[in-house]
């Protein structure tokens, strides 16, 4: 590795804009998002449904298709620009240097092929290896991701596996070429808690064993707290707050993040009313003027309805998109 | 499996069609046993011989010539016919033809268990009724004098007896093989044996029937190697096959509307063979139904139909408008019969007189699968509208049509009839004999006339018989207006360039034993 590469982040997304051009209007699903993923780290992206987490992830591998389009910004992987790159170049990265696992293990595997075949396909697509070798590597990978009876499972069809196993297969597929970056889009949302715990444990292990960076997308703050090193909080296509994991929970800055955390029924809490953020996520077609969270914000001030705040530094790699922190201050 | 079944009945060896006449037909036939069918005579004509044959010797004139009977004597009272048979004639399987075969053939026709349909033609023979009733096992009036002489005695004199023996249903079968074949006779080529100029080679249902020449035919082998009939359900397809050289003859009866096209096309100049059909097109009246019970109405309708226009437009004018029952070519045809005029005013006046000044509503019934009939009915529909008669065309399927007609309940319909044998009896008796008039939905009410039709059969003096028929014709058609005669028409065939010597049979039928006589192919 060259000196230059070593210093640069593995993935650097700058001011990414991905819009959907629907017949009802332009949906700015991702509206100027910057995310950095250093090597050997698990970076979380959290936010409510529809805030643009998946679209961000898909944009990295240019898996956005009509009516969506990346309309601005840059995505640099290892210093290489991906936005506007040749489709063949992107294809050589997909599943190779960067791979993804999706939320729905039920539907993300092709029902008519054996899982072994589907995983080995990921290898043969990028590396000139023999069928037999690919097979062996898949079996090894299955073992690595904790699939019991890996040899036998190679020949299984997706429907013959439980949800947890399928998600392991997906992870195995993603890890098959030992990628530098694994994008996990809500990998545990569809799973039971006991299985979720297994999968999260596995991901941490993978990061540890293979040195793979992970971009973990979730809406579950519990999951974030459990595994992430650094966290981005998204709201309506924008990053609202980003901080190290402890900072985020100990010194929660943005009113939105606070709201989210308070909404969760605390295990220790007394039975009193839960805090809740009033209103609901805005329609991206009719975003409010000024700060997009302002209509729901308890702390909103006149300027919040007029101007869009920037990401203000709250120190210690903690950035907040809120006028409250414009001068390094905090809410009263 | 499939292969074996498909090949069944198909000629095993490759047959060259270079010298085979290729014909087409629209519907598959039920049997090639002439006794069992009233509809299909092509193959029965060619693979069997009859005792006598009917041949045309001039425009519309037929003559009885010897067949398997080389000569015959008729007793003076017209009751006893003695046939002297050809000697040395062999069946296709090499067996000798003798008087025994004639007796067997005739008795087979009459025995109820055979279920034959053409008994009519030999029913004048004494004792035939007893056989048909199952009362007798042998035909009383048929006597084998020796191996080559047969004597037939009739119940009463019947002038058309010889002519009816020439009908295709009276072909002579080989006793031994026919008995052996049983139900398969007429169905399985190898078992369907005759003495004719061709033998039955193969039959693939809905596809092709093939007969090949009988090299040892007693009159001498035919010039053709054989004749093939393709079953082509669609007449337009058949026409295209003919025009692209896949058939040798196109029978314009399948597409009368195309006559003009063929006749005016230079390509077919000299390839048209025209014969007069000894037959007639007509409309019926059901006299049991109002207002057809009124003779004035019937006469009005007779006058309101422009027969010439129908003939011109639908048959390219190829034929002749008729005003009676008997067509030209039939013995007893009356060229001097007064003409029924097309006269709308007179028709209207008659209708008014009958109490229908504004016309009435009526139904013409036809079977569904006949576009030609439909065109005819549509023209009549339009023509009758001019005298205020509103016609509904009702279409029913063929079976229903026949069934309803047999019950005497069709209100009005159009069809045609052509001669089986050359005698007026074949027309007048068929339509106006007491039982028959009901079965054909005429319900002709004049019993006196009907009885005269029956009585005419037994008149021994031929001239007197003809005179009676002509009188009956005038009375029934012109005085009683029992039907609407339309016209007789020509039967037109278009032949391929290579086919020479194609002739039409005396009565205009498609089936003819002329396929033997003088027909050949020049490649």
């Amino acid at each position: 590795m060259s000196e230059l590469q070593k210093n640069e982040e593995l993935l650097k997304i700058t001011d990414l804009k991905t819009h959907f051009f629907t017949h009802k209007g332009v949906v700015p699903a991702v509206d100027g998002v910057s995310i950095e993923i250093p090597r050997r780290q698990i970076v979380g992206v959290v936010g409510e449904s529809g805030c643009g987490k998946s679209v961000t992830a898909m944009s990295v591998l240019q898996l956005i298709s009509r009516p969506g389009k990346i309309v601005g910004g840059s995505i640099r992987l290892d210093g290489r620009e991906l936005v506007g790159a040749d489709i063949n170049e992107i294809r050589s990265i997909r599943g190779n240097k960067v791979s993804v696992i999706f939320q729905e293990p039920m539907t993300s595997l092709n029902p008519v092929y054996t899982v072994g075949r589907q995983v080995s396909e990921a290898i043969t697509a990028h590396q000139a290896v023999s069928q037999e070798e690919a097979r062996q590597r898949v079996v090894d990978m299955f073992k690595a991701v904790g699939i019991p009876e890996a040899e036998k499972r190679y020949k299984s069809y997706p429907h013959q596996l439980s949800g947890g196993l399928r998600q392991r297969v997906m992870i195995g597929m993603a890890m098959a070429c030992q990628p530098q970056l694994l994008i996990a889009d809500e990998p545990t949302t569809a799973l039971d808690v006991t299985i979720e715990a297994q999968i999260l444990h596995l991901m941490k292990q993978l990061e540890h064993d293979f040195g793979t960076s992970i971009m973990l997308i979730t809406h579950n703050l519990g999951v974030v707290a459990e595994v992430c090193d650094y966290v981005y909080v998204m709201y309506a296509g924008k990053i609202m707050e980003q901080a190290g994991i402890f900072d985020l929970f100990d010194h929660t800055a943005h009113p939105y993040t606070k709201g989210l955390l308070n909404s969760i029924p605390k295990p220790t809490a007394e039975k009193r009313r839960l805090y809740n953020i009033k209103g609901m996520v805005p329609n991206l077609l009719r975003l409010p003027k000024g700060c997009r969270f302002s209509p729901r914000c308890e702390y909103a001030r006149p300027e919040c309805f007029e101007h869009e705040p920037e990401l203000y530094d709250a120190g210690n790699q903690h950035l907040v998109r809120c006028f409250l922190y414009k001068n390094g201050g905090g809410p009263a | 499996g499939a292969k074996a079944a498909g090949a069944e009945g198909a000629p095993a060896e490759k047959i060259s069609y270079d010298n085979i006449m290729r014909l087409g037909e629209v519907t598959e036939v039920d049997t090639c046993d002439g006794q069992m069918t009233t509809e299909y005579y092509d193959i029965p004509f060619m693979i069997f011989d009859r005792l006598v044959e009917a041949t045309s010797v001039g425009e519309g004139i037929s003559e009885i010539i010897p067949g398997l009977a080389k000569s015959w004597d008729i007793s003076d009272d017209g009751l006893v016919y003695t046939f002297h048979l050809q000697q040395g004639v062999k069946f296709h399987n090499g067996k000798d033809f003798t008087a025994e075969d004639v007796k067997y053939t005739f008795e087979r026709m009459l025995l109820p268990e055979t279920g034959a349909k053409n008994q009519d033609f030999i029913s004048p023979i004494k004792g035939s009724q007893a056989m048909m009733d199952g009362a007798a096992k042998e035909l009383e009036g048929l006597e084998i004098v020796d191996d080559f002489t047969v004597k037939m005695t009739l119940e009463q004199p019947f002038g058309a007896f010889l002519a009816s023996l020439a009908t295709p249903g009276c072909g002579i079968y080989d006793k031994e093989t026919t008995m052996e074949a049983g139900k398969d006779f007429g169905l399985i080529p190898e078992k369907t044996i005759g003495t004719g100029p061709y033998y039955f080679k193969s039959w693939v249902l809905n596809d092709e029937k093939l007969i090949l020449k009988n090299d040892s035919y007693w009159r001498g082998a035919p010039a053709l190697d054989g004749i093939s009939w393709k079953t082509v359900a669609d007449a337009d397809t058949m026409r295209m096959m003919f025009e692209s050289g896949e058939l040798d003859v196109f029978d314009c009866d399948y597409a009368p509307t195309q006559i003009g096209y063929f006749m005016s096309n230079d390509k077919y100049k000299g390839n048209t063979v025209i014969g007069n059909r000894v037959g007639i097109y007509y409309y019926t009246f059901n006299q049991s139904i109002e207002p057809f019970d009124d003779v004035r109405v019937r006469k009005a309708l007779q006058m309101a139909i422009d027969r010439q226009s129908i003939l011109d437009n639908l048959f390219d004018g190829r034929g002749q408008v008729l005003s009676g029952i008997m067509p030209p070519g039939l013995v007893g045809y009356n060229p001097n019969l007064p003409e029924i005029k097309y006269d709308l005013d007179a028709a209207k006046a008659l209708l008014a007189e009958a109490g229908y000044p504004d016309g009435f509503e009526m139904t013409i019934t036809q079977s569904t699968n006949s576009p030609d009939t439909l065109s005819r009915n549509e023209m009549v529909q339009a023509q009758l509208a001019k005298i205020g008669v509103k016609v509904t065309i009702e279409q029913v399927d063929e079976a229903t049509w026949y069934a309803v007609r047999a019950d005497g309940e069709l209100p009005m319909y159009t069809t045609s009839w052509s001669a089986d044998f050359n005698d007026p009896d074949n027309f007048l008796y068929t339509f106006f004999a007491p039982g028959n008039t009901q079965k054909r939905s005429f319900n002709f009410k004049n019993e006196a006339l009907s009885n005269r039709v029956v009585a005419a059969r037994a008149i021994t003096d031929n001239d007197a018989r003809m005179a009676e028929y002509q009188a009956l014709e005038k009375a029934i058609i012109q005085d009683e207006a029992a039907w609407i005669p339309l016209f007789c028409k020509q039967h037109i065939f278009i032949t391929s360039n290579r086919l020479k010597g194609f002739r039409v049979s005396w009565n205009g039928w498609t089936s003819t034993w002329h396929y033997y006589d003088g027909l050949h192919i020049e490649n």
Partner: protein
Amino acid sequence: MQEAIQAAEFAEETTRFMPPREDVEAELLDDTSIWSSLKSMLKNNKLAALSLAVIVIVILMAVFAPIVAPYDPNFQDADNLRFAAPSMAHWLGCDELGRDVFSRLIYGARVSLVIGLVPTLIAMTIGTVMGLMSGYMGKKVDFIIMRFADIVLAFPSLLLAMVVMYTLGASLVNIFIALSIVKWAGTARIVRAQTLSLKEKEFVEAAKAVGVKKWIIMMRHILPNCIPNLIVLFSLNIPDSIMSESSLSFLGIGAVPPSTSWGLMVYRGKQYLFNYPWLTLAPGVAILILVLAFNFLGDGVRDALDPYLKD
């Protein structure tokens, strides 16, 4: 290199489709009634719009036939106009009896459209009721109805129609009966399948939990949700009926004169293909265009109602 470019283009072409997500849809579309989806489909799908226009024109022509048709369709002038070639006076010429083909075509459209519509309506009404009962009641009712449907579906449909027509005789009403008998089962199957899946929906359970009666659930909760499917089926069944009629006409058991249908005109005109081709080409092309139009419209409707079909 060349290859790479092609591959890239291929990717462009194929990846351009990404379905709008349901939740997104819910948020974005304030008005997603069936009606408005169809309207926007017509706006975007020119072929479907054109097809609709064709169908509307044919319907109008049929309805206003006496005004539109230049001549009485049954007026014959065989002696003068027999096989008259197309001309200013007779746009599509005249037939063997000297009738104006264009006028007959317009009147024939009436019969063809009625044959397209009526049996489809009857069959689908029967099929819908049967399918609903079968799917919702289940058990014996289901078994009996589905065995009947099996019997109908096991017949080669044209043969069955032929047998029915022969049994009943040729007439317009009997065509309706024959085609309805042949077609109800298909609708019944589809409605049943959809009923089975709707039956499991939570809103049906909610209604049951409230104590809503069976047949009200069927009418209020199941049937309305089958409507998109029924619309699609309807638009695809019409051309099917029109084609069936032409087949029956070929077999001589279709429409009955003097009324004429396009199928019958094609059949009767085909003998003049060589010399007077307009007699068969005009009605043949008319059928082709009308049936294509119904098919395209049906496809468009299906695409437009796609999200509803999955409910």
